[in-house]
Structure formats: C-alpha cells, structure tokens
C-alpha cells in the first residue's frame, strides 16, 4: 500500500534523482500548479530549469461539501517542469510510474490527445492526458506559450493529480477513504476543510449574496490595482502574487453565482492582461498594462 505521503516522497525522490530542484508550494491560493512562479515564470526566457513541487490547488466551483467521492474544492498536484523538454521525457515519465509501484505490463497506460489551455494566463500547450486504465492521472503538456509569449526553448509540464493517482494505487472508490499516512485517512485530514470551504464557495454564509458578491468584486479590484502598482514599481514576483489573488477572487465570484456570462469574459481578460504584462516584465520587456494603470 502506497500512502498519499509516500507517493509524494517517491515522486520527489524520482525527480530529484533526475536533476530536478525540489521546490515548495506557493503560499497563495491558486487553481493549478501552473500558476506557481516556478512554472509560469521559469518557462519564459532562455534559461534551462528543472523543478518539482506539490501545489495544493483550489477550485471553488468543484467543491461538493465533502459529499462527492471524486470532487474536491482543493486537491493536490505534483508538478514537474523540465526545460528544455528532454527527448526521453515520455520514458522518464513512465519510469516515475514504475517508481511508484506500477507494473506497466499489467496495466493499460496511454497518452491520449488533450491540449491544455489557460485563458487567464494567456498560456497553452500541446499534449496528452495520461490514462491509467482509463483514469486520467497526469496532464502532460509541451508548453507553447505563457503570458502570451512564445516559448523557446520548449518546456514540458507533468502534472500528476495526486488524489486520483493514489485512489488507483490504493484501489479505493472514495477519495476520503485514501490513506494519507499509515492509519490516517484523507477524511481525517481534509474533510472538515472541504465542508467549510464549499459552504463559503457557494455563498452559504451569514451575509446576503449581493453583499458577498460586492465584497469579492471589491477585493478583486483592490488586488488588481495593487498588482498594477507593483508591476509599475518593477516588482514582478509580488505582482504575480496579487494577480493570483485576483484569479482566486474571480473563481469565488464564479462559484457563488456573482458573475454573468458577458461579465465573466471581461474578468478573464483583466486577469489575462495582468498575466501577460507580468510575463513580459519577467523576460525584460517591462511595460505595465495600460488598463491596469488606468484602473489602478
């Protein structure tokens, strides 16, 4: 039995032994490990870089009050960035599965087309979902653009969905039944968090919906303004922090029903504008976004 924490050890061990630096999660809410500066910024520019880290990923709309056996407000990604993408990357990836105890001959592991795109980050890539007996356990992407910038060299991103991967390894049908560590279930560690975060995400709090929406909008605007100011001050990394805050506020507005369809697009474009400006500033084409300046 491979516990969730052992799985993290094994992946960390495997990838550090292949030359990856072991980084830590960013201490800010985000929807995916791609938004971590170790991915979003490091894939930009010419410098070679290899890194691995776990990133807790919050997706408010996926919250299910701890009642759904497969969906979570917050799940964990094990993120690997290899820049440039090695020729042997598929074999390396498959070896990492073997390192976690998978017998590749006894299972059906496949690379099926699934291109990745993040409109809020102005990022996209070509790749696959890796199916383990029909279950998606990893997103495998050759990045083509980030922050609207064409990348060269090309980085490869491997994103393991730790909960799903562990469920297959442990042969359990309910995420809350996973063994996190010996004798400690995922339920013991995370269930209360799922219930409470879901209630917040769906606006079940002591505040009328309209007021909550207004609060989130206000926070979005404040973070947005601050990100713009930081960017104008030439502080790229702090600016990214507040760009991520904006993105999270947008996700919360979305999950609590505070956003209409047309407005939705406008919010996405604002976050994207920030992300693009941050990417450009990082690679040296420093220029604050006109919109951020105007609205800040």
């Amino acid at each position, binding site marked *: 039995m491979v516990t969730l924490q052992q799985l993290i050890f094994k992946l960390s061990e495997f990838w550090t032994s292949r030359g990856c630096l072991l980084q830590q999660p960013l201490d800010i809410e985000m929807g995916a490990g791609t938004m971590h500066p170790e991915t979003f910024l490091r894939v930009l520019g010419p410098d070679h870089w290899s890194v691995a880290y776990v990133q807790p990923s919050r997706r408010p709309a996926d919250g299910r009050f701890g009642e759904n056996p497969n969906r979570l407000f917050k799940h964990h990604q094990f993120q690997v960035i290899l820049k*440039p993408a090695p020729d042997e990357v598929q074999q390396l990836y498959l070896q990492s599965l073997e390192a976690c105890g998978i017998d590749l001959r006894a299972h059906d*592991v496949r690379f099926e087309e699934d291109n990745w795109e993040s409109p809020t980050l102005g990022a996209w890539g070509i790749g696959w979902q890796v199916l383990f007996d029909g279950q998606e356990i990893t997103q495998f992407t050759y990045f083509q653009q980030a922050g609207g910038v064409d990348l060269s060299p090309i980085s490869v991103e491997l994103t393991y969905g730790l909960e799903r991967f562990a469920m297959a390894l442990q042969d359990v049908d309910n995420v809350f039944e996973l063994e996190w560590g010996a004798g400690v279930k995922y339920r013991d560690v995370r269930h209360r968090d799922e219930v409470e975060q879901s209630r917040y995400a769906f606006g079940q709090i002591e505040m009328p919906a309209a007021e909550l929406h207004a609060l989130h909008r206000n926070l979005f605007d404040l973070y947005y303004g601050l990100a713009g100011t930081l960017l104008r001050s030439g502080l790229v990394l702090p600016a990214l922090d507040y760009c991520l805050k904006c993105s999270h506020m947008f996700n919360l507005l979305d999950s609590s029903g505070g956003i209409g369809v047309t407005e939705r697009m406008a919010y996405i474009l604002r976050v994207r504008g920030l992300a693009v400006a941050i990417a450009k500033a990082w690679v040296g084409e420093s220029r604050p976004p006109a919109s951020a300046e105007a609205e800040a």
Partner: protein
Amino acid sequence: MDRELLIEIGVEELPAAWLPGLTRQLGERLAARLKEYRLAPRAPIETYSTPRRLTVRLAKIAERQEDLEELVTGPPVSAAFNAAGEPTPAAVGFAKKQGVAVEDLGRASSSRGEYLTYLKRQRGRSALDTLPGVLGGVLRDLSFPKQMRWDATLDDGRGEFVFGRPIRWLLFLYGGRVVPFTVTRPPYAAGPLVQEVHSGALTYGHRFLATSGRAGRSIKVRSFDEYQARLKEHFVVLEHAERRDRIARDLEGHARRLGGRVALKEHQALIDEVADLVEFPGVVAGFFDPAFLGLPAEVLATTLVHHQHYFPVVSERGTLKEAFLAVVNTQPKDERPIARNAERVVTARLRDARFFWESDRRTPLESRLDRLHTLLFHKALGSYRDKAQRLETLAAWVASDAFGVPDAAGHAATAGRLAKADLTTDMVFEFPELQGTMGGIYAREEGRPEEVWKAIYHHYLPVAVEADAPPSSAALGPAAVTWGAVSLADKLDTVVGLLHAGERATGSRDPFGLRRQMHGIVRILMDLPELTGLDRELTIDSLASHAVQAFGATGEVAATVRGFALERVRYALEGRGFATELVRAVTATPDVSPLRARRVARALQGLRASEDFQALAVLFKRVKNIARELPEPADLDRDALTEPAERALLDALDARRPAVARAAAGADYTRALTEIAALRPVVDCFFTEVFVMADDARVRTARLTLMASLRDLILDLADISEIVPHTE
C-alpha cells in the same frame, strides 16, 4: 536496378483522429515530391500508421533520377551570324555561356522567327543522394490540425521545423541501406538531453510488451517484410484494418461470454477511432451497479462511448446491460486489475450523471427560460432567451403556414419555446453533446406529449444532407411535423440571423457551422415527404424571407441566403449521385425548392438519353439565346404569326402547356418533361423554316415573344441546355 524505399517516422502519440488523414497525406506528399525530384515509383505507394509511427513503403523505385533535358533559347539566327556567315558576338556569347562551341548549337523556329538553341542535358543523380531532399520536403509538407514547436530545425534553410508531435526516430532505408537524414536542434535547446535525430535502420516495438528483455529496445531491420514481421513479434499490429478487425472480433467474443452483444454497426466510428489509439489491441470487460440502468440510455451511452471510448453491452432485446467493454493497448493475462480501474472511472461519471439527472428534474423546462438570458447566442442577435422567443413564433408559422398543418402549430410553438431550455441544465453543461436530447427527455419526464418532446429531442438533426442522415421517420413517429417545424425554425433563425449579423462561411473557415445548418434545412426540405408525410415543394427563399422579418433584415440578406442555399442544394444533389450538369440544369433559378429539384433531376436522369430530348436540349440553347433579343416582355401577338412552321409551334405550345402544367402540379416531372420533349419536331421545323429576326418589327416581336414563352415553359422545370452532350 529498382529498389525498395521504406520510411518510418517514429513519433510520440499522435491523436487518433488525425491518423486517417495523415496516412493519406503521407502517400500523396511523397508521390508529389518524388515527381518533383524525378524519381519514378515502379510500384504503388503503401502507407501505414499507428499512434507512434507513420510508415510509407514503395516496393520499387528507380535507382537514379530521370535525366533532365531542357531546351535553352539563344539569340535569333538573324542576329547570330553576319553577312559572311560568321558568328556574331551574340552567338559566341551564348555558346560560351552554355559551355559549348557555336557549331554545337541547334536551331528552332517559332512564330517570331528562327533562334539558336542549346539542348541542355543533366544526368540524374542517384536515388540515395536525392532521397534526403524528398523526405525533407515530405516532412515540411505534412499538415496537421494543430502543429507544435518542439525545438527542432531542418537543414533546408527554412529554419524552425514544426510538426504534429515530436519525432523520436526515423527509419529511412533505400534498398536496405540507410539514407542519411538529420533533424537538427537549435543551440538554445541542444545538449545531452536534447539531441539530433539521425535516420537509421532502427525501429521500436510496443512501449510495454516484449517477449524477452526490456520492452522498447530498438530493432534493426533491412526491408519492409522484415520490418512488419519484427513489429508483429514486438506487439505492434501495423495495419489499421487488422487492428480494427481484431477489436471487432474480441468485442463480439467478450459480449457473447457476458450473454449479450455489441452493436458493432452503430459503433463503427468508435471502432475505427480506438483502432488508432492502440498498437496491440485487446478487450477488457467491466461492470457497474445495475442501479445506474435507471438513467436514460442516452446518458449511459454518452458516458461510456463519448467520454471513455467504451462499448456498451446490450442484451439480445437491445436493452443496456450493466457491463461495458474497454479496448486496451495490451492483452493482459489478468483483466481484473485494469477492469477495476476502468470501473472506478465509469462509476464516478455515472454517479455525477445521476446527481444531475435528479437535480435537473427539480426545475421544469418552462421555468428555466429566464436563465437563458445569461447565455449569449450571438452578440448582435441577443441571448438564447431571445432566440427561444423567435423560435416559438417561427416554428408555429412553419407548421401552420409553410406546412399547412395549423393543428400542429400549438405543439410546434411549445417545442420551439422549450427547445433551448436544456442549455441551463447541469447534465448538458457536463455532457454538451446531449443538448436537445436531454431537453427532449426532460420534456418527456414532465409529461409533455410525444409531438412536443420528440420535436425537442431531435431538433438539432439533421446535420447532414444524405438521404439516410438521421432522424428517420420511424424515430420521429407522430412528432414528424412538429419536429420538422422546430428543426427548420431553429436552423433558419441561425442561418438568417448570422448572415444578417455579417457572419460568413468562407473556405475552410466556418466558425458558426453555417454550412451544417444549411445542410439541415436542405435535407428536411428535400426529403419532406419521406420525413414528415407532407408533400410540399417549399423553396428555401419563401421560408427565409419570412424568417428575416424577426431581425428587421433587408432584401440584401435574403439574396445572400438565396445564394448560400443554392450552393448547398447543389452540393446535396451531387452528393446523391446526380451528374454536375443535371444539378446545374435543375438549379437554374435562384428560388430553388430542394424537393422539386431532386424530383426533376431524377426525371431528367431517366429521359436525358432519349433522342428527342437530346435534340431539344441542343435547340433550347438557341431558344434561350434568341429570346434574349426581346427588348421587353410583351403579350404574344398571335395574329402576327402566319408562317405554317410558327403556327405549328404556337399550336403545339397551346396544346402541350396545360398537360405540362397538370403533370408538374402532380409532381409527375417525367410526364411533364416527356410532353416537352414531344415539342422537338415543331421547334426543329421552326428554326429551319422561320427567320426570327424579321425586318418587320411587329413580326419580329411576335416571334421573339413566342421564343420567350417556349423558354419560360421549359425553364420552369429545368435549364435543359445544361445537359447538351459534349461533342468533343
């Protein structure tokens, strides 16, 4: 001596949907490049593919390029020699440039006089020297639905080399020898982990399976036969057809053991797709909780088929069983470990679906309409709420006015109003391919009559123009008329609205699927009797000109719709096997009725070979040309026609016209055209005996008017001049 050419492009997994097209392209591009390089194939080009390889083989190909002969033209002979017959500097210069003496030059005459020439011969290079250029060209030529940058370059001066997926090896053999070829890597990426790809005599087997040793080791081959045999040993079935047939056999065998069957015919496309997802197919059976069988069959099938590429197992009676079959890229000794994981995924998805199924039904479709406000249809055309409102009115009008079935208008209006309501359900949000279908099912659950729920259920159909494109009249049952009204209304609203908003389908760009929408309209109208039992030869124009009113649109839009519709009707008729000239003949007028066009085309097809008809078709061209001389339409001045031949034509027209009209009114176009063909002798005689352009203006006008009325009689059915047999 002719030798074998074998190329295998080893790639990381290509999308299954691309393989058929890429395989075809590979053959075509290679043929084109070989032609360009003057290397003659002496055997057919064979192409193969799996997700990890694109392979092409030519059993025999020339050893050398064909020699090149080129005739180079020099100065005119008049300027090449002086009066004494000595070569001028112009002649000497030309000879020198070609590297020969003046005596070696030839002469050639053209319309402008005689010129000095030189026949330049270039000896063909060996195939081995030429083939790298061929492969380089082919690699550049292959086009992908989406291409990627992967830090690769080719040494052809064109810089970065984009492809569908990274290339990991190149097997490149000519007569068993390796043809040198290199994919280079730019300095900013190159290093110990990013290296050039050199062609070689190596291929690779299955990723995970090997009879001995570690899987994935390289295999050396010298010929195609050896290549195919070694791949087979290493668990790669090279031919798509063989993989597909194995899968079909395995599916049937597994289903039988489960006491059921797989609807192979219905799932033909899925079988073809999964055959391109694997190199060594096997089948694994999985099960789910029978309680999920309470979900609508459509939801179960979508979950299994569309999301997981699994095959549902049905009982002999055709009902779904609690089992599915998964095609996998291996033939495991023990199926259970794989099946367990597959079952986990299926169960999770079905559990979601059941949740949506239960929660969606708590909100009736009618009370979902307001939520459609938040869904934008098109920025110039408003939300889906606006569209629903237009559909309600238009569907009712189609039923009562266009179809002439006022009794169906009420149901059509209801179905039109509710048709888009399912866009707000969780089920459709999660399974977008179920839109329409889900709305129909929810309407049924609400107790709506069959005329309403089936109209909603099928209203996205048809999406193709073929005579057997779904839905069938059997599937529609008593809902056929309301379905026709709602489906037409939806498509008319979309096409007319989007064209009004300035959207167009151009070339390969058709982001709103306008062609598909128009195909739906054409198919319904063309097969209206078969689909709905209504025999009405409706024109697209008459429907569109009503639909434009909802947008306050102008006649300009109507004209755009007409042109677009005409093009699609022609496409549909050609798709049904009618010759191009027949199609042109029956679509000569812009306000075309697809049904009438289809029927007249059928009739013409039967008659066109008859001698009278052929002769009349030739004469008709003259009729059309001469009738054009009539300055303005006039009433026929009968008294001005006195010659026996013109009287005979006039009498024949008077006699036949009612019969033609009667036959056409009864949609008996064979009869109508036969009546017309019978005019041939009098028309023939008229042209022999009568000079139309008489000096007397009155006589001339009368004769031209006679020609015009003959033209109009025939043109009302078809422009038969289009089917004049070509004499050359």
